[in-house]
């Protein structure tokens, strides 16, 4: 190649384009640079922060998606299951795109493509045809439906629609169609996960007289696929049987081998049906499984343990919960892994101890990240969760109050990333932990971002690593300490502190 071809990364830096932009500004009615700068500086002040926190109705850059997307993620982890949206085609396309940009994998979802007539006369006809075509064209073993805000507002009766679809022969009478109500104007994607998981369990579970020896495990809205492998491995080390309810780790990690298969792996429908007969249930998230937990306790009469399996302490809780539920001793291998994680942190924590953190993410992850950071001596200062409820806020405050390193921690539930921007300008921290959208905060504030969360659309393959268990703790610690070192390298590059030895 003779001349290197310039794309957007460098093309517009050239003077041809820079001159063009300056010329274009004349037509833009653009503000003067001084005015822009003055306003920019104002947005960094306490005065702006106060104004920003006074708003009642405006939401800017929230960290949450709507219910049905969470529902689809619960559904896709079951064997041969086609997620299905009862609503506008646009909803399904948005959910699919959102997941695909994160996982870089196909994410099939069917839809009955409701239009204006359905809004007036009800969505039943669209739903019947939708179920029929999905069943015939894509041969699923189960269809799991979620609703959109449209079908919720017009009040479609899903129960009778599914019954009618079967009675009128659109789909076979014995074909499993599970459905959940997932209104977008209530809660967020984690509530949608909860509602859909509970719907699938309650509609598919078949209680028998005798309990079996398995433990149900539900991960919650966990987009780190290696975590599904990790929990199975841990159970294997225990010599215990796991019934992992929703396991997308194969279908969202399929090979490029010349053939596309729409369905791969997942929790078998037989295991799903057998879930009520397990001797106990372990939940790895709390806030995305509130209703599911209540359902399993009340309807299936199983002991339910909820853990937050991040870092040493969180994994200790996980391991002890498994031991308690299965009655089996902690395997030596896991104790070894624990020691290896302690060893690794002992090597690295000097770079983190005393450093301050701004953490944002879903409720369970945000709390887990606080503990991970504190185990390295880091101090969470801002913990901001757009989809955190009042209960989450109270409980997290209570939990963190027990930790020396959380003395300065402020919990911000129901706030968005524009609030976070004000917090970072007025009370800066050393590092932000968040998803890809937090890169805008990194740009604005100059504070280094460590990417942990969902969605991660601007970095590749991070979801393939574990974040739970001792191995996950090691992975997160590695990301955090190395990101801190990258930042220190960047800041010291032209000073004597630009050390080889770190």
């Amino acid at each position, binding site marked *: 190649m003779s001349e290197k071809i310039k794309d957007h990364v460098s093309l517009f830096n050239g003077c041809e384009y820079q001159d063009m932009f300056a010329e274009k500004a004349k037509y833009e009615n653009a503000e003067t640079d001084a005015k822009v700068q003055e306003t920019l500086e104002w947005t960094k002040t306490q005065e702006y922060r106060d104004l920003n926190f006074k708003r009642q109705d405006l*939401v800017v850059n929230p960290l949450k998606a709507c219910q*049905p997307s969470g529902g689809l993620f619960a559904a896709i982890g079951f064997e041969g299951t086609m997620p299905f949206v009862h609503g506008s085609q646009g909803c399904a*396309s948005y959910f699919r*795109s959102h997941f695909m940009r994160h996982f870089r994998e196909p994410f099939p979802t069917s839809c009955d493509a409701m*239009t*204006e007539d359905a809004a007036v006369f009800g969505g039943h006809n669209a739903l019947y*045809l939708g179920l029929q075509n999905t069943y015939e064209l894509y041969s699923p073993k189960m269809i799991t439906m979620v609703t959109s805000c*449209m079908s919720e507002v017009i009040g479609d009766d899903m129960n009778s629609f599914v019954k009618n679809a079967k009675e009128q022969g659109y789909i076979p009478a014995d074909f499993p169609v599970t459905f959940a109500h997932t209104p977008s104007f209530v809660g967020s994607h984690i509530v949608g996960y909860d509602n859909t998981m509970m719907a699938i369990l309650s509609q598919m579970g078949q209680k028998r007289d005798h309990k079996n020896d398995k433990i149900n495990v539900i991960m919650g809205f966990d987009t780190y696929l290696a975590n599904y492998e990790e929990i199975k491995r841990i159970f294997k080390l225990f010599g215990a049987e796991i019934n992992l309810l929703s396991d997308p780790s194969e279908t969202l990690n399929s090979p490029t081998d010349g053939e596309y298969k729409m369905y791969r792996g997942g929790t078998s429908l037989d295991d799903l049906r057998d879930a009520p007969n397990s001797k106990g249930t372990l939940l790895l998230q709390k806030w995305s499984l509130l209703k599911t937990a209540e359902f399993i306790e009340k309807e299936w009469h199983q002991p339910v343990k909820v853990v937050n399996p991040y870092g040493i302490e969180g994994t200790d809780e996980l391991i002890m919960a498994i031991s308690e539920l299965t009655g089996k001793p902690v395997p030596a291998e896991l104790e070894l892994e624990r020691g290896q994680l302690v060893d690794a942190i002992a090597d690295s924590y000097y770079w983190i101890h005393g450093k301050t953190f701004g953490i944002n993410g879903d409720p369970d992850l945000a709390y887990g990240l606080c503990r991970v950071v504190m185990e390295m001596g880091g101090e969470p200062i801002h913990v901001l969760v757009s989809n955190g409820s009042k209960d989450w806020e109270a409980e997290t405050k209570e939990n963190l109050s027990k930790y020396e390193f959380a003395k300065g921690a402020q919990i911000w539930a129901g706030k968005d990333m524009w609030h976070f921007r004000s917090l970072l300008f007025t009370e800066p921290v050393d590092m932000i932990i968040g998803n890809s959208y937090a890169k805008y905060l990194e740009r604005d504030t100059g504070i280094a971002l460590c990417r942990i969360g969902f969605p991660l659309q601007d970095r590749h393959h991070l979801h393939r690593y574990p974040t739970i268990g001792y191995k996950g703790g090691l992975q997160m610690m590695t990301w955090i300490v190395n990101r801190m070192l990258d930042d220190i390298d960047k800041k010291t590059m032209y000073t004597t502190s630009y050390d080889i030895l770190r």
Partner: protein
Amino acid sequence: MSGKNVHEHGVEVMEEILEGYNDGTAKDRKKKIEVVKAEDVKCGINANRKIRPGVMSMRGCAYAGAKGVVFGPIKDMIHISHGPVGCGQYSWSARRNFANGTPGINNFVTMQITSDFQEKDIVFGGDKMLTNLIKEADQLFPLNKGVSVLSECPIGLIGDDIEAVSRATSKEIGKPVVPCRCEGFRGVSQSLGHHIANDSLRDWIYEKEVKGVEIEDSPYNVALLADYNIGGDAWSSRKILEEMGLNVISQSTGDSTVSEIANLTKAKVVLLHCYRSMNYISRYVEEKFGIPWVEFNFFGPTQIVKSMRKIASHFDEKIQQQTEKIIAEKYQPQFDEIVSKFKPRLDGKNCMLFVGGLRPRHIIPAFRDLGVQVVITGYEFAHNDDYARTLEYVENTTFIVDDMNEYEMEKLLENFKPDLVGSGIKEKYSTQKQGIPFRQMHSWDYSGPYHGVDGFKVFARDMDMAVNGAIWKKITPPWK
């Protein structure tokens, strides 16, 4: 493809596809598929119709067309996704509409601003909340030059009066507030959203006589309309227009401003790139202000040169001479260099191209410049006139599908085994699993620009990178 007559093979595939459907769906889809020959002058596809439920269409909704395409790129407006949180979230920074300016200060393109509807808003209505929200936004983002209110599904269902709120708040903040009734259930695809958004601009910008900055009159003033500046497309196109000697006084909606939108009416000629999404405005401006519009195509050497001459023909000899001069002295040598570098690497390859409502026909000639034949194509949300326009560009037997779905795509890939597929994110990964190289042709697969002379270089490089990527030779293990 085997030695079989290409057209016969296409018809066989079409029949196989239709056989997989039940009667009702087959009847519907039959009107959406056609195998056209090079000499055909008519395309019988009946487009812009409802999606058949349950087939897994690739389409989006009216909101996607209005917010994601038309309004979203206007950088000095605050675009409110009015309704529940999801629509704004999934479309947040998902279209790469590049825009200069300081984000959050005088450029709001990459922000997700929403009313985040809760159950109480559904029950009691959201008008009061919207009124307060617009005032809050104006306080926090004082350099904004206007607001758009983009309705999501519930707004139209609960009977909110966003027009009344817009009128009242516009007075209060002293800036245009533009309501847009783009609820996702309206129409059958993104396309109606484009139309509704165009109508909103007509009624709330032009009819209300919103003023742009003063413009010095010149016979060479033009408006660049319907380029969304994906990866910087509009800038690459603008460069050509300026080098022809034209003054681009208005660019929309990519990297656009309220002033530029308003000043469209001061252009001598409106230059329309994406016909499908904004022809409504150009027709309106022609009718109301008597400004002519020219459809043009800045993809690939053949069409760039053709379009430059077509545009120049609306101006005097000075522009025409300048146009010929830069083609001969500046652009043609660059085209020759790129084509000689990349055509040998792409010559004879077959491509399937399925996106949007315009791009396939615009890009077919650019592929041809590089020796690539598009053998399967179609649109997500085109109208019948788009299919008629497509035939002008078809030079070989081509399989045409409207509103393709996942099942049909699977059948087509299996039967035609193209060397390259250009489509969207939802189609990318299933195609690549099959060992077929793929480029996202909505977002330029995070590359770009693809428009203009600078863009063609990137386009050629990227298509080569796709087809000749090292990994595609590793699909089958050596022991198989």
